[in-house]
């Protein structure tokens, strides 16, 4: 019976596994192989070991790109957590607020990232943008091209990401909040703990697992940022808003430096994989604990 069950299980899993291997695992292996080669239309293809990676180390643009990617990840994930906690607390407070806020924040979540990027690009527009209208009203001589300046362009991309993904964090955390027993708050209130003490003493510690999971998912996802940069700035001005995935895309597709582009892509993959493995050792043991039963 056990043996038959196992064979039946493998049979059921095979369509999913075949697709995952063909379209996720195999391509990664191919990328690693390509990253060890000189592969472009201008010279014959050959293996060069870690040559592409050595070139990456001395590539100023790549270093700047890594820098902004990390800045983007740090800033947007931190802001998303703060906004997410605030939104989750609001939704937790009252049922009416929950329905209203949930419906409202699901809209940014559902909107295609490309459309989000178009919206934010238009809001940042130097002539017709909402930000200029809100800040300067009719005084059009003050209107600025927000995406043409490095600092504001970076800020715009970070804020667009926060706007789009804080809802996801909020919903995760709301689920965590609902798991905190009300009796604990009641008891603390009776003991005279104010709202601040209750938040930092009870809510936050009990919310820790949910926060860690949100942090993990968002960090891994933010490292892959692409759509926002593609639509809003194409990495400009200069390479101020260039990010790893976009740099890899530039090298691979428009510039046809397949080997070098693959090396960039492997670096992104490794960053995410290392983070994921670290997380699985920490948070994940709890996440997967139920599997082992």
């Amino acid at each position: 019976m056990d043996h038959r069950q196992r064979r039946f299980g493998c049979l059921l899993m095979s369509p999913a596994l075949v697709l995952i291997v063909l379209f996720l695992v195999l391509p990664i292996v191919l990328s690693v192989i390509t990253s060890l080669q000189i592969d472009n239309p201008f010279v014959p293809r050959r293996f060069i070991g870690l040559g592409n990676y050595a070139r990456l180390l001395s590539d100023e643009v790549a270093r700047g790109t890594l820098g902004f990617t990390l800045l983007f990840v740090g800033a947007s994930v931190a802001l998303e957590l703060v906004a997410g906690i605030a939104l989750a607390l609001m939704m937790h407070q009252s049922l009416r607020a929950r329905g209203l806020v949930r419906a409202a924040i699901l809209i940014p979540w559902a909107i295609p990232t490309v459309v989000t990027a178009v919206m934010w690009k238009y809001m940042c527009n130097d002539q017709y943008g909402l930000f200029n209208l809100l800040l300067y009203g009719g005084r059009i001589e003050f209107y600025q091209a927000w995406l043409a300046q490095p600092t504001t362009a970076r800020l715009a991309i970070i804020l667009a990401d926060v706007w789009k993904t804080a809802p996801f964090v909020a919903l995760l955390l709301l689920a965590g909040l609902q798991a905190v027993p009300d009796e604990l708050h009641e008891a603390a209130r009776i003991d005279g703990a104010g709202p601040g003490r209750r938040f930092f003493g009870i809510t936050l510690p009990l919310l820790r697992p949910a926060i860690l999971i949100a942090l993990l998912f968002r960090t891994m996802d933010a490292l892959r940022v692409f759509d926002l940069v593609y639509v809003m700035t194409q990495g400009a001005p200069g390479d101020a808003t260039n990010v790893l995935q976009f740099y890899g895309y530039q090298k691979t597709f428009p510039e046809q430096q397949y080997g070098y582009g693959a090396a960039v892509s492997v670096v992104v993959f490794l960053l995410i994989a290392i983070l994921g493995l670290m997380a699985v050792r920490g948070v994940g043991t709890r996440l997967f604990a139920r599997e082992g039963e």
Partner: protein
Amino acid sequence: MSGRQDLSSRQDHRRAEQVDLGRWATGLLIALAVLVSLGPFLWILVTSLKSPAQIGARPPAWLPELDLSFYRAVFGQHDFGRYALNSAIVATATTLVAVLFGALAAYPLARLRMPGRRWLLGLVLGASMFPQIAIVGGVYRLLMRAGLLNTYPGLVLPYTALTLPLAIWILASFFREIPRDLEDAARVDGCGPATTLFKVFLPVAAPAVATAAILVFVYAWNEFFFALLIMTDPARQTLPVGVAQFPGEHEVPWGDLAAAAVVATLPLVALVLILQRRIVSGLTAGAIKG
């Protein structure tokens, strides 16, 4: 129990004042959160409904003239009807395949004694976090060999692979909660594992199937990276690619683009608002079980 009620009633007066002030502050914050969430979308909606004469006004007008000429341009000269059709076909096909294969895989992962299934689930989940740039080259070559570039299956197959982990995760966490008795009863009635899955499990798991289906659909409708590189033929492009590569030589045609953005978004926003309960339960599935 009654002692505690006494204690809390003594503090009721002081709390009432706090609550009153707190309620005002909370209300204000909620209004702000709703405004910030909806603002950007409302602004693009307003823009799309302006008239060609109104769009160039500086400072920009707050209220539109409710002119539909940008929408006519989007469906006329820009052919967004075709993009919408392509998006609908690709997203629907991806949803059907991913949910079917996902249910098949989730059942043994949740229920049968499979060797190393914990490992497998980890791999499946990790796979969904692969950066697209590291996969797209291999996928492209594979599809080229198979002659599937610029075809619907060429997009549906990788989308299915990318969304399967999520579908499996949602379905497996739901399957685990279904009481064992149900299976035992089916076995006593002489059902094999296959009959048990299709006749007993899937009907019971209908809510989870719906949740997985919505999340997969939203992903496939919104995906940009693969669509950009695999569908280079304009006749096969999907809405996100149409929006991102909107033609405009020197000046971006903002009115047309705004209307295009609304067209790409509105069906999804409607779907999401109707099905919000299922989506929220899907996004949080498994995540809080730790």
